C-alpha cells in the first residue's frame, strides 16, 4: 500500500510537471510552458517592468569596449549614447537595441530567411517556401560579400552584432523577452547575415511590387488601344519630384544618338496568364518628405520634414536614439537590427527618405527545352538551370526538401502549374548582387556637414530606391531620386517578357549624375510623396506605381506658405485634406439623378455638398464618399470586373476614372449586361444606391464615422490582439498627407529646423521598448494619434548634472 502511495505520488508529481513543461506532448501549437511561463522567477511576471522605478546609475561590465561608453536614457525612454569612437558606439547601439527589441529582431530575421515552420509548424511551409525561392538568404549573403570589401565600415556592422550578442549572452535569468516565453523558443546569435536579411526585408516592403501579370492580361484582353486609353502611365495632374526645367535637353540628344536601340519596343509576351489571388504589396506603403529653404521660414533657416508610411506594428519598426562621439553627433531613428541612423539629423544637416515607386521587379517567361524543366532556351542555346537545394525544418514533422531553379534572370519562384508566374523567372533589383555597401549611405549621412557630403554618401544607396531629401544649416535644400535604376526600352518590364533572349535584359543602370535631382530650386522647397519621379520628358523610361494626390497637397500648401515655423509643419503632417475627393465629388454630385433616389438619400447629398474634403475622424462624409466612389468604380468598370476570375486584372487607376467623369456619355459608362445605354449620370445614381445599401443602418446610426470605417490600428508583429492597439481614434486617409490607412500610416514623424543649435521634433507610433509589459511599449501612441510632437533631446554633450531629466544613466565599460 505504501509502495503504491509513493509511486502514485511520484507519478502524479512527474506527470503534473511534464504536462506543464512539455506542451508539445499535448499539442502541436506553440503554446507556452505554463509552469515556466507563470513562475514569478522565470515567467511573464519578470517582464512586468516597474512603471516608476529605474536605477539611478548602473555600471555594465565586460563589454569588449575600447573606452567606456555612457548611455543616458531620457524621459521618453530614448537612449543617448556617448562613446569615444564609432566602433564602441555601434557596439552599444547593438546592445541597447537587443535589450529593447530582441524578439522583434530575431523574429524578423527568421521570417525573412523563411524559417518560421521550424517554430510554428507545417502551416508556415508555404510562406517559408516562397521566401526561400525568392532567395533572401542567398541575396543577403551576396550583399555581405560586397560589404566585406569595405572592411572599415563592415567593422561597424560586426561591432553592432557583437553588441547584440553581448546582451543575448548575459540576459539575466527570467528576463528573456516575453514572446520567446509565450512561443517557447530562444533567440539566436545576431550576425552580419541577419543585418543583411533585415535590409532585404525592407527592400521587399518597398520595391518588390510588380503588376506584370495583370498588365499583360489587360493588354491582351482589351487590345493595345483601349489599354493605352485606360492605363496611361502618367497623370498630368501630379507634381513630380523633379520638374523638367530643361536640365535634360542635352542628355536627350546624347542618348538618342548613342543608344537608338533603347528606343525600340522590347519583345513582349502576350499569352494570357491564369492567376489565382496571391499576396501583393499594400498600397498603404508610402511616405512624405519635404524641405523648405530659409527664405520661406520664420527663422530664416531650412526646415526638413519626413513621415515614412509603413505597416504600423508594435514593437515599432523604428528605434530612436542619439549617437555621440568626438567626431559625430547624430540623432534619429534606426531600423531595429540594423546599425546606424536611417532617418535623422546631426548638428549641421538633416535627411529623410520616401519610397520611389519605380518598377525594378521584372518577370520573364522561360522557354523550357526538356520535360523536367531543367533546361531552357537563351539566345538560341540550351542552358541548364542551376538547382539550389534547401531544407525547411518543420516543427513536429520531417524536414521538407526544397529545390529552387535558378536561371540567368533569377529564380523560378513558383513551380506549381496553377500558380501565377508559374515557370517564370524573376529579376528583382534587390536580389541582384550588391554593387555598393548600401548602409554606408547612412554612415556617411550621420557625419555629413555639407551638401557635397550628402551627395557623396547618398550615392552608396543603390536600393531600395528612395527620394532622399536633405537640408543643411548652410541653407541648402536638395532631393535625389536615389538608387540604381535599370535602363529600359519603352514599356520594358511593364509586361511579362520573353526570357529566351538576352536582348530583353536591362540595358545597364542610369549613371548617378543622370538620376533626377534638385538643389535649391527658386520656389524654395523640395518634396516627395511617392509620386512620379519626373514628367515623361525625362529621357529614361520607367514605369511603376505612384501616388497621385499627396504630392499635390504638399506642393500646393508649400507654394502658398511663408514665414513657416516647425509648428506649421507639424500641422501639415497631420493634414487630412483629399485632392481625390475634391477632384471627383463635384462631378459625382452634379451627375446624380435625384428623381431616381429614395428620400433617405437627400440629407446625405446635402451633407456631401457641404463637405470640405477633409477626412476627419468624427465625420460621416468621408465614409459616404469612399464607399460611393468604390461602388462607382465597380459599376463603371463592369467590363473588367466580369472577366473570369482566372484572369488577374485590376481597375484603371482612380485618377483615370475621375478623368473620365467629364466625358459623361463615354461608352465605358454603359453597363455591359443591360439593353439600355447608360451614361455617367446613371452610374453615379445607381452607385449612390449601392452605397446606401452597403452602409445600410450605419448611415442612420449617428455614431458611425470615418474612424470606424478606416479603423486605424497598430498590430503586434505576431498579430496577438492583446499586444496590439486597435481602432485608434484618428483622422486621415492614404491620399491625404496624414496617410492613415487601416494598419498603415506614418511610422515616424520628424520635423527638424536647421537653426544653430538644431531643433528637432518627432515621435513613433509605439515606444522605445518592445516589451508589452513595459510602460514604454506604446507610450507615444496617443500623442501620435492626436498629432502632438515631442521636442527631441538632442544633447550637445554628456550631461551629468541634470539627472532628473533622465530615467537612468548607465556606464558600459
Amino acid at each position: 500500500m505504501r509502495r503504491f502511495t509513493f509511486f502514485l505520488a511520484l507519478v502524479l508529481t512527474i506527470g503534473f510537471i511534464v504536462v506543464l513543461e512539455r506542451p508539445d506532448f499535448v499539442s502541436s501549437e506553440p503554446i507556452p510552458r505554463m509552469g515556466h511561463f507563470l513562475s514569478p522567477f522565470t515567467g511573464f511576471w519578470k517582464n512586468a517592468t516597474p512603471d516608476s522605478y529605474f536605477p539611478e546609475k548602473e555600471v555594465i561590465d565586460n563589454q569588449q569596449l575600447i573606452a567606456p561608453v555612457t548611455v543616458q536614457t531620457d524621459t521618453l525612454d530614448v537612449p543617448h549614447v556617448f562613446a569615444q569612437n564609432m566602433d564602441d558606439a555601434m557596439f552599444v547601439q547593438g546592445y541597447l537595441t537587443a535589450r529593447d527589441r530582441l524578439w522583434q529582431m530575431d523574429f524578423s530575421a527568421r521570417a525573412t530567411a523563411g524559417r518560421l515552420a521550424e517554430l510554428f509548424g507545417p502551416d508556415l511551409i508555404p510562406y517559408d517556401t516562397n521566401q526561400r525561392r525568392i532567395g533572401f538568404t542567398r541575396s543577403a549573403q551576396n550583399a555581405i560579400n560586397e560589404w566585406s570589401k569595405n572592411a572599415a565600415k563592415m567593422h561597424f556592422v560586426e561591432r553592432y552584432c557583437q553588441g547584440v550578442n553581448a546582451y543575448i549572452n548575459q540576459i539575466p535569468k527570467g528576463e528573456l523577452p516575453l514572446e520567446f516565453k509565450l512561443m517557447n523558443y530562444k533567440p539566436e546569435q545576431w550576425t552580419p547575415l541577419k543585418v543583411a536579411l533585415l535590409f532585404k526585408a525592407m527592400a521587399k516592403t518597398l520595391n518588390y511590387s510588380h503588376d506584370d501579370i495583370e498588365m499583360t492580361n489587360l493588354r491582351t484582353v482589351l487590345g493595345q488601344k483601349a489599354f493605352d486609353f485606360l492605363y496611361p502611365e502618367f497623370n498630368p495632374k501630379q507634381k513630380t519630384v523633379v520638374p523638367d526645367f530643361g536640365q535634360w535637353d542635352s542628355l536627350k540628344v546624347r542618348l538618342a544618338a548613342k543608344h537608338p536601340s533603347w528606343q525600340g519596343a522590347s519583345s513582349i509576351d502576350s499569352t494570357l496568364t491564369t492567376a489565382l489571388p496571391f499576396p501583393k504589396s499594400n498600397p498603404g506603403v508610402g511616405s512624405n518628405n519635404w524641405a523648405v529653404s530659409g527664405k520661406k521660414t520664420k527663422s530664416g533657416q531650412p526646415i526638413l520634414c519626413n513621415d515614412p508610411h509603413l505597416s504600423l506594428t508594435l514593437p515599432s519598426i523604428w528605434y530612436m536614439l542619439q549617437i555621440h562621439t568626438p567626431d559625430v553627433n547624430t540623432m534619429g531613428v534606426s531600423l531595429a537590427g540594423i546599425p546606424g541612423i536611417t532617418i535623422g539629423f546631426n548638428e549641421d544637416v538633416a535627411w529623410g527618405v520616401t519610397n520611389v515607386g519605380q518598377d525594378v521587379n521584372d518577370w520573364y517567361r522561360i522557354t523550357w527545352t526538356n520535360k523536367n524543366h531543367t533546361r531552357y532556351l537563351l539566345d538560341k542555346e540550351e542552358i541548364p538551370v542551376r538547382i539550389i537545394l534547401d531544407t525547411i525544418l518543420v516543427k513536429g514533422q520531417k524536414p521538407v526538401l526544397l529545390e529552387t531553379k535558378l536561371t540567368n534572370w533569377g529564380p523560378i519562384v513558383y513551380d506549381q502549374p496553377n500558380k501565377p508566374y508559374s515557370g517564370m523567372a524573376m529579376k528583382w533589383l534587390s536580389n541582384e548582387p550588391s554593387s555598393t555597401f548600401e548602409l554606408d549611405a547612412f554612415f556617411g549621412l550621420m557625419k555629413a556637414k555639407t551638401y557635397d557630403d550628402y551627395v557623396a554618401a547618398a550615392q552608396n544607396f543603390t536600393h531600395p530606391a528612395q527620394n532622399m531629401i536633405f537640408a543643411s544649416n548652410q541653407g541648402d535644400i536638395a532631393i535625389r531620386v536615389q538608387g540604381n535604376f535599370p535602363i529600359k526600352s519603352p514599356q520594358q518590364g511593364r509586361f511579362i517578357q520573353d526570357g529566351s533572349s538576352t536582348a530583353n535584359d536591362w540595358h545597364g543602370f542610369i549613371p548617378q549624375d543622370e538620376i533626377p535631382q534638385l538643389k535649391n530650386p527658386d520656389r524654395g522647397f523640395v518634396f516627395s510623396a511617392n509620386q512620379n519621379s519626373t514628367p515623361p520628358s525625362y529621357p529614361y523610361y520607367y514605369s511603376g506605381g505612384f501616388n497621385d494626390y499627396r504630392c499635390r497637397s504638399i506642393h500646393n500648401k508649400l507654394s502658398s506658405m511663408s514665414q513657416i515655423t516647425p509648428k506649421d509643419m507639424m500641422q501639415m503632417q497631420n493634414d487630412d485634406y483629399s485632392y481625390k475627393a475634391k477632384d471627383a465629388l463635384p462631378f459625382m454630385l452634379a451627375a446624380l439623378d435625384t428623381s431616381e433616389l429614395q428620400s433617405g438619400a437627400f440629407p446625405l447629398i446635402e451633407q456631401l455638398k457641404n463637405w470640405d474634403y477633409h477626412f476627419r475622424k468624427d465625420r460621416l462624409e468621408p465614409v459616404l464618399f469612399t464607399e460611393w466612389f468604390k461602388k462607382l468604380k465597380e459599376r463603371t468598370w463592369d467590363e473588367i470586373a466580369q472577366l473570369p476570375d482566372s484572369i488577374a486584372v485590376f481597375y484603371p487607376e482612380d485618377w483615370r476614372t475621375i478623368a473620365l467623369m467629364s466625358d459623361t456619355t463615354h461608352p465605358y459608362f454603359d453597363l455591359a449586361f443591360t439593353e439600355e445605354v447608360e451614361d455617367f449620370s446613371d452610374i453615379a445614381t445607381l452607385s449612390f444606391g449601392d452605397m446606401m445599401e452597403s452602409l445600410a443602418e450605419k448611415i442612420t446610426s449617428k455614431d458611425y464615422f470615418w474612424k470606424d470605417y478606416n479603423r486605424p490600428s497598430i498590430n503586434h508583429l505576431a498579430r496577438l490582439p492583446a499586444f496590439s492597439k486597435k481602432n485608434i481614434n484618428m483622422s486621415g486617409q492614404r491620399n491625404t498627407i496624414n496617410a492613415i490607412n487601416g494598419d498603415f500610416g506614418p511610422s515616424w514623424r520628424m520635423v527638424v529646423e536647421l537653426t544653430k543649435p538644431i531643433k528637432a521634433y518627432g515621435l513613433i507610433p509605439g515606444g522605445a521598448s518592445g516589451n508589452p509589459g513595459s510602460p514604454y511599449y506604446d507610450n507615444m501612441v496617443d500623442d501620435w494619434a492626436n498629432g502632438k510632437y515631442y521636442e527631441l533631446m538632442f544633447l550637445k554633450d554628456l550631461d551629468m548634472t541634470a539627472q532628473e531629466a533622465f530615467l537612468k544613466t548607465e556606464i558600459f565599460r
Partner: protein
Amino acid sequence: MKHLLQLIIILGLGWFVQQHSPWWTMALVGAFAAFTFHKRRWTSFMIGLIGGGILWFIPAYLANLENNGLLAQKIGVLFGELSPNLLLLLTATIGGITTGLGAWTGSAGRYLMQKTKGNDTQPK
C-alpha cells in the same frame, strides 16, 4: 511549531533554489522538506501547497503592483479574459500544487524507507 518550520524551510530553500534553477525544482524543495520533517502525507501536501503558493504569489503580486497590472491585464486577455487577480491565483496554485505534490511524494518516500527499515510508527 514544526509545521511552521517546515513552511519556513520551503520558503527559504525555495527562494534560493528558484533563483538559479527551473520552476519545477519546487517539487524537490517540497519533497526535501517533507522527507526531513516526516509528517502525515496529507499534512505535508498542505504545507507544500501553502508554502509553494506563498512563494510564488508574493513576487508575482509585487511585480504586478509595481507594473500597475499593465502586463497581467494583457496576458489575461491573451488567455481568454482572465483578470489579473485570477492570474495571480493561477500562479500561486501552480507553485502550490507543484510543491505540494513534491511534498506528498517526499513524505510517502519517507514512509516507504521506514517500512523497509522495519520502523513502522506513525509520525505525529
